[in-house]
């Protein structure tokens, strides 16, 4: 299990255990953490699971694919550390990961 901390836009923190192999998006949705909508369920089709990856974790979470990049390009409030959380797969290396949520996914 990897501990992941999700921080809502208003600062509310949620730290949960997520099973390796699941995505960072699934970790939020299955624990009913608000702020990640994930309308398409992880098909990289909707850009409603946008998160900001804590700077310290950018290297370990890897880089985004071309599809993800072009979806993100049109999301609200995109920053250099923006990712679609359905495209980050949880592993033991991500134990301690911190992501922050944007104000809105729509």
């Amino acid at each position, binding site marked *: 299990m990897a501990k992941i901390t999700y921080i809502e836009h208003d600062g509310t923190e949620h730290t949960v255990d997520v099973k390796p192999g699941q995505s960072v998006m699934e970790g939020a949705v299955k624990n009913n953490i608000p702020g990640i909508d994930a309308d398409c369920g992880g098909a990289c*089709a909707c850009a409603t699971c946008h998160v900001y990856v804590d700077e310290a974790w950018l290297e370990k979470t890897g880089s985004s694919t071309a599809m993800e990049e072009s979806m993100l390009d049109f999301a609200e409030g995109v920053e250099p550390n923006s990712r679609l959380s359905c495209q980050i797969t949880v592993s033991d290396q991500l134990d301690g990961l911190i992501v922050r949520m944007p104000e809105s996914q729509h």
Partner: protein
Amino acid sequence: MSDQPSPASTPKSDHVVIVGAGHAGGTIAALLRQYAFTGPITLIGDEPIAPYQRPPLSKAWLKGEADAEALMLKPDSFYGEHGIDLRLNATAVAIDRAAKQVRLRIGEAIPYDVLVLATGARARRLAIPGVELGHVLELRSAADAEKLKAVLGPGRRLAVIGGGYIGLEAAASGRALGAEVVVLEREPRLLARVACEVLSSFFQAYHEARGVKFELGADITAFEGADGHVTGVRLADGRLIACDAALVGVGALPNDELAREAGIECANGVVVDLEARTSDPAVFAIGDVTFRPMPHYDRTHRLESVANALEQSKQAAAAIAGRPSPAPEVTWNWSDQYDLKLQIAGVPFDCDEILVRGDPAGAKFAVFHLQQGVVRAVEAVNAPPEFMMGKQLIASRRPVARDRLADTTVSMKEVTA
């Protein structure tokens, strides 16, 4: 929670009963808890498993790329932990609005203060001989998908009846599993009810290049079988298309009978407003079963999509929990076939012009549907910027510069600049 709930909000001790534990029903139950609604919630579903995602059943799950656990909306433990009484294998058979009760098939009456109908849609059945044969399948539920998966494999022959999205996704997944696939479509082209000709011919060619065969304008008269199982599909011209299984994907009908019989206003589905409220103020309806306002189009329509189920879950949950109504969303949907990602935004009502951006031969293009120069819908194949910006163009309801939109050297961000 807001400090000042609106006067119309539901008292927190109210009992919310949700009929239908699909994507919409499961979502509103979880959203009510996210929105700090503390009253009792009962979620009634006629399937044996907790709410799950249906879209992967014809895509990733069918191909074995997603397991059953990945399909579940929430873990099984979620419902008990959040005070949601999940009643599985339970079928609601009547609503008594005067007594505010839902009656189950087993005879039990469940009282409600607020009722949410999330009963979805069911597959349309063909009225021809042989539909009752084994291996004549449909694809709505996880149980349906299990049956389909069991008959697919190298060398197995699948006949798909209906060239819509479900049929084409199953065809692509069937090919990925090594099955021989033939698609039989009554209309002269694929996706005839839902997409334009550019898309129809593109998908047909893409599937043909991957070994799928098509029979267009096919008039099916019967399923024929031996030992109780289907062995072929008989056409009006006398030919028999041999198969080991047949998947029927010819559209869906709203499960609105409970509402109709209770005297709640229905048209093509249960009529609701933008709070997902029906003609009875104590009854909401969400998802595929609804006939709903389409604020970007000034009309009403029935949608079958996850995006619709989620939007209406938010509308009803906000109304029940006393939150402000969410802003209307541009409806959208998607389909995965082979390495293609099709993303659709809007609905092409009353369009007078079709504009293609990009080259279908390169499998990266978008079809924009315009009405008097305003983008009303877009179908984007492997083209996320066109989809994402298309949604914004639809919401803006302003005419677009056609020459710039058709010119791929102008980026989608610059089209509207």
